């Protein structure tokens, strides 16, 4: 991307304010062997519902009507394939046919295109269907040129969480172990849905503050059940929790590894010595304490692997 991407689309994100060094370090501002003039050799498109500070950096800004991202992506997929699209359908997205034709032309003629999509796409109406549509569009673009898509990850090591869960369980998030083996079903095992339905009867929160970010019914359920929080600060969630344990902040006082959003692991170089234990140590000790207790099956024993005899 840094070396070759000459067509960069930011969709539903505001990198100028949320990922300030993304432009300079990884994308549009970089000069490379293949793009020697740097910014001049690259085209940047921004798709968002309103004008943010990132607009200034963009060559083309497409202001899509709120909640119409999925429609826009579907229209683009049709236009890319040369299929018929009705005028009313385009009008609904708040854009014109000329703009979209131009965009499709640029997408097809670039050498290496990239979609970066943010929460403006993946967390608004349509949610994961929007992300899926954009990923499909990127895949389909490969019939014409090289095209990739990548989510703009927010908090530090959320990419690492995906990677670690995939490695340990085979699934990236929304996993249930309640049959003794991992099952994946977002919507059923994803936190907000789980809390809003009131399914879980205890919560262990680490490196997150759902008390500040989740919808009220979910927070209400967190208040009802015993909640345990591990965080470097007393957070909104700590205030409604039964147990709060202060831990050392990662990368400042806690060593370890963090994944960059392109899934590159980075070693952390802590500068300070914290008076608090690290997350890793606390969770390991809780694990050890639980291992002392009987297993959760009624018999209190670990399930045995069934082997066929003979």
């Amino acid at each position, binding site marked *: 991307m840094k070396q070759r991407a000459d067509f960069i689309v930011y969709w539903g994100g505001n990198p100028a304010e*949320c990922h*300030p*060094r993304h432009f300079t*370090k990884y994308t549009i501002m970089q000069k490379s062997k293949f793009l020697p003039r740097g910014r001049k050799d690259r085209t940047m498109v921004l798709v968002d519902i309103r004008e943010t500070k990132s607009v200034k950096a963009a060559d083309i800004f497409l202001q899509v009507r709120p909640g119409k991202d999925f429609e826009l992506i579907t229209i683009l997929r049709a236009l890319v394939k040369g299929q018929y699209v009705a005028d009313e359908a385009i009008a609904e997205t708040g854009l014109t046919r000329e703009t979209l034709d131009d965009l499709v032309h640029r997408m097809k003629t670039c050498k290496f295109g990239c979609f970066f999509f943010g929460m403006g796409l993946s*967390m608004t109406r349509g949610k994961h269907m929007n992300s899926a549509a954009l990923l499909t569009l990127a895949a389909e673009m490969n019939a014409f040129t090289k095209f990739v898509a990548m989510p703009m*990850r*927010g*908090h*530090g090591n*959320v990419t*690492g969480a995906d*990677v*670690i*869960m995939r490695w340990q369980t085979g699934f*990236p*998030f*929304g*996993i*249930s*172990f*309640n049959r*003794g083996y991992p099952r994946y079903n*977002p919507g059923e095992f994803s936190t907000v849905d*789980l809390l809003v339905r009131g399914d879980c*009867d*205890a919560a262990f929160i*680490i*490196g*997150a503050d759902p008390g500040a970010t*989740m919808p009220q019914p979910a927070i209400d359920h967190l208040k009802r059940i*015993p909640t*345990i929080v591990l*965080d*470097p600060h007393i957070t909104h969630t700590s205030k409604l929790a*039964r147990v*709060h*344990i202060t831990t050392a902040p*990662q*990368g*400042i*006082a806690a060593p*370890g*590894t*963090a*994944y960059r959003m392109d899934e590159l692991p*980075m*070693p952390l*170089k802590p*500068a*300070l*010595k914290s008076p608090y*234990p690290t*997350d*890793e140590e606390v*969770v390991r000790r*809780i*694990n050890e*304490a*639980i291992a002392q207790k009987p297993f*959760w099956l009624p018999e209190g024993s670990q399930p045995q692997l069934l082997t066929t005899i003979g």
Partner: protein
Amino acid sequence: MSLQIIENATCTFCGCVCDDINLHHDDLRIHKAERACVLGTAWFLNHTAEKKYPVALVDGRETSLDEAIEVAAGILHEADMPLVYGLSNTTCEAQKECAALADQLGGILDSHTSL
């Protein structure tokens, strides 16, 4: 007092995880984060090695780490369907421990990704 410098430190505030930050620090705090952006600078300078908060709280009461771990283990063990959630602002090593925790409990494991 002269400051110690850590070269090419990693910033974990946002998903960019910039790994070229030079940190000027003493024992207590980081004074300067070279090459970090506005968000990164705030992140590094606002965390100190001071003991600002109690080690652990149980029902709002200050307590020792050992007791808090014991209470937490008890709560999680008693629960029928415990949820392990978050995992963003922490290291991969801790995340692995969390996966083991959810597995051992027969609970739910979920991250910010699903939000």
